[in-house]
């Protein structure tokens, strides 16, 4: 991923740099960073918005979808005109966010992530942020990121709650260390069945970006290193330890089932 390191105007990040854990040094690291946002729906639009404002230097946003009316309650970058015009979400997001911060490079990619293209999409990135809406793609991201040693942050949200977990290849458990074999995504009830609160989306996205800022600025000791589960309706925030599995097919045995066999499904 190309990087545009414009350090000419740090003033816009003044309030962020005043946060002592970040400072100017941290801000410069953010400006030198390249990330992939996988998905540009509820989580992705929120994540991209915050990453751009925070000054992450190069942001590749990947999504194939167009905006629909029932996206608007939670997908903060889009409006009714976008629904009518029918442009891809990433195109709209890049256009709007480039007006927010012209210092960063925003690269929209209109494509469905799959086993044929995922490695090209992620190569060169310092970090990937998960904003997908299905587990088949997440398992693919997990395979590709573990294979290439790229850290990524898993996040999912449904109803009033969500999960976040930061995965660092070789150091932390990966997604397959703790997610059981699941049925095909078409058989897993999702937000189309149980709905999703915009407040849950927003808080999960912002936890994810906070983890990203820690990672990109080298503050890895500040990463939470646990699975975070937040329920905005019940008002609960829980963190759970996850053990790395030596026999994990992905990070343990280095078997990349979802990359190597595109038809691999989440079935035992």
């Amino acid at each position, binding site marked *: 991923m190309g990087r545009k390191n414009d350090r000419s105007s740090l003033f816009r990040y003044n309030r962020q740099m005043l946060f002592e854990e970040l400072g100017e040094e941290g801000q410069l690291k953010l400006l030198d960073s390249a990330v992939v946002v996988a998905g540009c729906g509820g989580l992705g639009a929120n994540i991209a918005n915050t990453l751009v404002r925070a000054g992450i230097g190069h942001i590749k946003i990947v999504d194939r979808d167009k905006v629909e009316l029932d996206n608007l309650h939670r997908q903060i970058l889009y409006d009714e005109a976008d629904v009518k015009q029918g442009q891809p979400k990433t195109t709209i997001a890049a256009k709007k966010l480039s007006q927010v911060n012209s210092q960063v490079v925003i690269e929209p990619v209109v494509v469905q992530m799959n086993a044929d293209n995922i490695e090209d999409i992620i190569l060169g990135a310092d970090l990937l942020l998960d904003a997908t809406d299905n587990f088949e793609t997440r398992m693919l991201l997990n395979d590709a990121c573990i294979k290439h040693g790229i850290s990524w942050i898993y996040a*999912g949200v*449904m109803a009033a*709650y969500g*999960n976040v977990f930061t995965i660092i290849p070789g150091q932390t458990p990966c997604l397959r260390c703790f997610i059981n074999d699941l*049925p095909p995504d078409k058989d897993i009830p999702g937000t189309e069945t*149980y709905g999703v609160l915009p407040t849950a989306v927003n808080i999960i996205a912002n936890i994810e970006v906070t983890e990203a800022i820690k990672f990109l600025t080298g503050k890895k000791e500040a990463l939470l290193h646990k699975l975070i589960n937040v329920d905005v309706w019940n008002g609960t925030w829980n963190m*759970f*330890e996850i053990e790395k599995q030596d026999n994990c097919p992905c990070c343990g045995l280095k078997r990349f089932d979802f990359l190597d066999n595109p038809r691999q499904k989440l079935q035992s």
Partner: protein
Amino acid sequence: MVIYLKAGSELRERLQPDVDYYTRRVETQPGKSIREILQDIGIDPRLVAFLYTGGKVEKLDYIPQDGQAITLQPPVSGG
């Protein structure tokens, strides 16, 4: 022995709680995994992504102890 299974919205309906809104008391045999226990009570284990218990995330092969509380986490797929 007895364990207590807990689940939120989508799994809660299948779990049929009887202790409180989220919790079902389940009588089972020692040594059985959560996967086997779920099958015994008619819940497809594939609808559970992972478990929470004792501050840790566990997989379905986890074998609970008498009196233990286990929270079932469905796949959180939305983005």
